[in-house]
């Protein structure tokens, strides 16, 4: 029995041996294949990571910031200590106004090997983009020396000038940017400046240029061009700009309002009224729509109905000249002269403030570092109830001169108004006119 079993075993082994040989060959091939796969996985991962980085750079250049962030985050997963990736992430975060995140990535760059001047430049851009012009001269010199970075620098400087309402400098910056790079954003911004310089035709030309340059900017460009053309009393041309946006007329109150204004000017009053009513339903807190609805009734001769709408508008923005003026007209037409006289006085005050503001902003162009001018501008905002604006101007004044007494005093008024009396007392004391601390 035992011998028989041994013989069977030997036969089985003999039959298996050739198969075993094949099996060994297969095993060897499999091992070789696995080793090749492992060997290829490393360069493949590297290649994929590099592709992500390139895609992120491309998305950043084309202002697709969300996509750029996603791609770069994927790259950083595999290359957590890449200087270039962290620097690009800082740039993306800054442009998306995530300043703290940008600062984190720059801090990371500082502990990684890489050019320190890139980090310094990016820090300057972060500071400047938030309205601080302390590094203005350094940035201009960088823009001249490094044309590849100039568009980024000009964009940032333009934002800072806008925050400080320095129109001349903003215009010069945007002209330099456009000379270097035909960019839709630069044209849109220059259009904004030109409107404030009362060059509305120039503004329209810039908006149209922006529309031509970049399809992604076309919506904004058309709306702004439409608004500027309405101001120039060219409703036909305005309508031509606005009509392609008509699908969004109720969703976006600005588009809806501009379209209604164009129709109104072209005599399509009923269409304008229907659209404005729909807009009021959809956006009851939009002051400009309520005001336009009131103006439409006023022009149609229904002063009583206009009054209702205009009172609502004045309630929303009591310091807005256009609303107070329209309400005063409605009252005059109904011979409500006593109330109209009161409004006239208010109008005079508002006009005086408007003139003063125009004078101050004109002087600011030549004296941007004068805290007193900034403080006066803030006081006008305080008078018109725009507390947040007032606060920002006062802070900018105190940044220039931390001991500026008038700004401290105005800040005390601001804090009293928002019911923070202890902080107000602190500023009053710093202004040198405060009560002694108990």
């Amino acid at each position, binding site marked *: 029995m035992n011998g028989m079993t041994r013989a069977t075993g030997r036969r089985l082994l003999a039959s298996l041996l050739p198969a075993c040989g094949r099996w060994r060959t297969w095993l060897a091939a499999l091992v070789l294949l696995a080793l090749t796969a492992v060997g290829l996985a490393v360069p493949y991962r590297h290649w994929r990571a590099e592709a992500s980085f390139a895609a992120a750079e491309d998305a950043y250049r084309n202002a697709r910031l969300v996509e750029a962030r996603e791609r770069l985050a994927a790259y950083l997963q595999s290359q957590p200590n890449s200087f270039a990736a962290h620097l690009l992430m800082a740039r993306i975060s800054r442009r998306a106004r995530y300043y703290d995140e940008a600062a*984190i990535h720059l801090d990371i760059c500082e*502990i990684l090997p890489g050019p320190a001047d890139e980090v310094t430049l990016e820090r300057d851009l972060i500071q400047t983009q938030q309205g601080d012009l302390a590094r203005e001269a350094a940035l201009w010199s960088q823009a001249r020396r490094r044309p590849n970075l100039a568009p980024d620098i000009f964009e940032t400087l333009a934002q800072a000038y806008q925050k400080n309402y320095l129109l001349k400098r903003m215009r010069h910056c945007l002209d330099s940017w456009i000379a270097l790079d035909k960019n839709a954003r630069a044209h849109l911004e220059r259009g904004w400046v030109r409107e404030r310089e009362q060059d509305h035709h120039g503004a329209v030309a810039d908006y149209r240029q922006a529309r031509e340059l970049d399809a992604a900017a076309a919506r904004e460009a058309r709306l702004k061009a439409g608004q500027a053309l309405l101001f120039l009393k060219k409703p036909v041309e305005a309508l031509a700009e606005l009509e392609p946006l008509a699908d969004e007329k109720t969703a976006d109150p600005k588009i809806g309002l501009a379209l209604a204004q164009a129709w109104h000017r072209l005599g399509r009053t009923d269409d304008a009224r229907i659209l404005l009513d729909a807009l009021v339903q959809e956006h009851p807190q939009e002051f400009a729509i309520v005001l336009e609805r009131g103006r439409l009734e006023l022009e149609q001769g229904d002063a009583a109905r206009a009054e209702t709408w205009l009172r609502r508008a004045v309630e929303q923005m009591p310091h807005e000249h256009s609303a107070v003026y329209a309400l005063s007209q409605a009252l005059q037409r109904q011979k409500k002269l006593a109330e109209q006289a009161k409004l006239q006085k208010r109008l005079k005050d508002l006009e005086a403030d408007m003139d003063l503001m125009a004078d101050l902003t004109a002087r600011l162009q030549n004296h941007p570092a004068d805290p007193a001018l900034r403080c006066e501008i803030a006081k006008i905002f305080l008078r018109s109830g725009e507390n947040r604006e007032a606060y920002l101007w006062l802070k900018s004044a105190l940044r220039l001169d931390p001991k500026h007494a008038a700004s401290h005093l105005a800040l005390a008024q601001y804090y009293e108004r928002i019911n*923070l009396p*202890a*902080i107000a007392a*602190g500023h009053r004391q710093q202004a040198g006119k405060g009560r002694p601390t108990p």
Partner: protein
Amino acid sequence: MLKLAKNLLATIRRRPVRSCLIMAVLAGASYVACRQALVWRQYFEACRAGERGDFAAAWEALQPCLAAWPGSASTQFLAARTARRAGDLQEAQTHLARAQQLAAPAEDVILERYLLRAMSGELADVEPKLIAFLDKEHPDSVLILEVLTQQRMNDFRLEEARALLDRWLLLKPNEAEAYVRLGWIDDRLGNISAAVAHYQKAVELSPERDNRDGDRVRLRLTELLLDLTQASEAQPHLQILRERRPDDPAVALADIRYRSLVGKSQEAAALLDTLMRAQPGNARLLLERARMHMGSAEPEKAEPLLRQAVALSPRDRQVIYLLTQCLKTLKKKEADIYEARSKEIRNDEQKMRELMQELLRAPKDAWLHYRIGEIFLRNGFQRDGERSLLTAVRLDPEHSQAHRALAAYYEKSGQPELAVMHRRAAGKGTP
């Protein structure tokens, strides 16, 4: 098996040198593998201890890892983090620098550096960045919350700290430390019932952690329950405290208060007298004994005790109040003086409440922190006062009044170098 062993022996006999060499290599490899396995075990033990908040154990477990793997970035990083969490910031700095040299992930190094800076008193500089980490749901969010909540609590930004604690509990619903901190905030704000509920939850969730930390939560919980005259609820906690901390005077005082509450006044008085003999300069004990005397209509016995307590704690509201009552009962004119002081303290409390309300809306206003610090110092809360004034000068390095107040404080507390530094800074700052 036997055959295999026989074959092996035969092979060894046939080739003894080669066999010995193979065996030596195998033995060496096994030794190295075992050692590494043991070090890995220590590494994981350090991670686990860190997670349960036992930093001393974590630090101890890390030592063999640091010895075995001095060139490991992750070990150096873990050591830095553990040292920081244990409060050893210097050690943490050293290990973090080493981790950075060894190319630990730069983002982790920067985060850890921010946490270190926050704990070193530079919260204002790094707070927005830490919030940015939280907003992008960083995996270390709990560690960030641990530091941010503590620092905000230190700066008396209590409601802001509470908001972060709620966030912490969303991430880790059974985190005892978060409940301890919520309890502390409510305790500070005078929401006693809420504080009790939070402390109770913390003790339930992690009794061993509190035991390790000296039963401070259980003790405070017991004191608050006694304040609320909930003697039966306090009793089980007191029982545990008596067993674990028989020599702690705070536990003894709680025990006395408990006995007094359940009607064992004589026992309580006897115990208190014994305790007072052991600690004659303890204002809390003096107050408690005086209270007992007042309760048993013996104001003349209470008066000397209260005068002693006032000398020790001149701005303690309870002591001043009881002394005023005592002097009034004894028809002494001096009562008016203490009544005025009591009024001053009440005014300061009211002012403090108003300032705290403003602080909720403007947490980074240096002036508010200065005023709060001033009131703290005036009322004898030296450490709190110092901390508030330091926050004020951190927020506004040129805040002259805060610098002046700090200079005066450091002069009084015998730190002339710091006093000179702040007096100099006061000269440069805003008026």
